[in-house]
């Protein structure tokens, strides 16, 4: 499993993790590392706020002419193998996105997508925590009082102070 994301994934997913910012072309990188076949499965877990392509960033995030920047989905479609599976869990808006749909057809890809089925999956995920497989505590970086929600939102959305997950504490929980 390769993951084009930051160092954090190395620690939590126990996979080889690479930062796309350190490579010229992530698609070429994935092709090279898979003997030029492409990956069996590519998962877009980024969604509409992706960086990495000036065209997508300007039209998707700055001018909002698309429902967000579809950079990660673009890379996923182009770096999966022929007949492979692209799974989309990154969130996009309801209008259009620039996506190489011709490559989906010509490579015979299967596209799967969903938001998390939280109610259905929660018992299993709690089981994973109880068994010590995952430790969500370690990704909580900030505890902020609910009254400071404006600053908390800014810290989270701009990824300030190395923020990963924030827990908001209402006044009733502090008594």
């Amino acid at each position, binding site marked *: 499993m390769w993951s084009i994301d930051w160092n954090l994934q190395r620690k939590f997913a126990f996979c080889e993790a690479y930062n796309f910012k350190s490579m010229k072309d992530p698609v070429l990188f994935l092709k090279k590392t898979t003997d030029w076949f492409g990956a069996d499965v590519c998962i877009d877990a980024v969604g509409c706020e992706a960086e990495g392509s000036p065209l997508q960033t300007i039209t998707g995030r700055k001018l909002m002419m698309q429902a967000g920047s579809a950079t990660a989905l673009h890379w996923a479609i182009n770096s999966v193998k022929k007949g492979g599976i692209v799974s989309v869990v990154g969130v996009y808006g309801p209008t259009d996105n620039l996506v190489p749909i011709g490559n989906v057809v010509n490579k015979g890809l299967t596209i799967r997508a969903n938001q998390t089925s939280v109610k259905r*999956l929660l018992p299993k995920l709690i*089981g994973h925590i109880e*068994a010590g*497989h995952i430790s969500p505590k370690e990704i909580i970086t900030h505890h902020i009082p609910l009254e400071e929600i404006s600053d908390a*939102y800014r810290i989270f959305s701009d990824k300030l102070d190395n923020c990963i997950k924030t827990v908001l504490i209402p006044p009733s929980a502090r008594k």
Partner: protein
Amino acid sequence: MENTNLNYKNIPGWNSDADPENEPTYPMKKYTGDDHARLNWKRPPLQTPTTEILKSIERPNLSATFGTPVPPSGLSGMIRRFAFKFDESEYGHWLNLLLADRVNVVEGVIDDLLHGHVPNCFAEEGWKAEWKYNKKNVVKKVVKVALLTAAVVFLFTKNKEKKSKNIFGF
């Protein structure tokens, strides 16, 4: 190429998702009919509308649940009502809703002012945190806005001079 974990069995919880007895992601595998009971399913009592609810023209009825605290009002409400004349596949729906949201922001500020509350944009947008952790970005933004304002002011004053010249026949 670096390979960080050749022995996958060292990964905590490796293979734990493979248990076929605990596979909630494929409910159809063990379909019992409980989920919806299909034809015999009796719809639970629906929420009753107490205020104006905008309904998609793609459905015959209101959705099962909906929010009531902020009914459409004012100019943004008029735009929203217009947006709901289009189905969700048309730009007329989404672009008008996006516009209505932005108009609603201005309406909110006006409402605040009418109630004697001057909005503190600096605090409400969390710029204190930005200043604390990313001073460079704040300075960059301020410079950008200042330059843009200066450019706009310059352009307008330049045009005015030309216009006034024309009006007075110079």
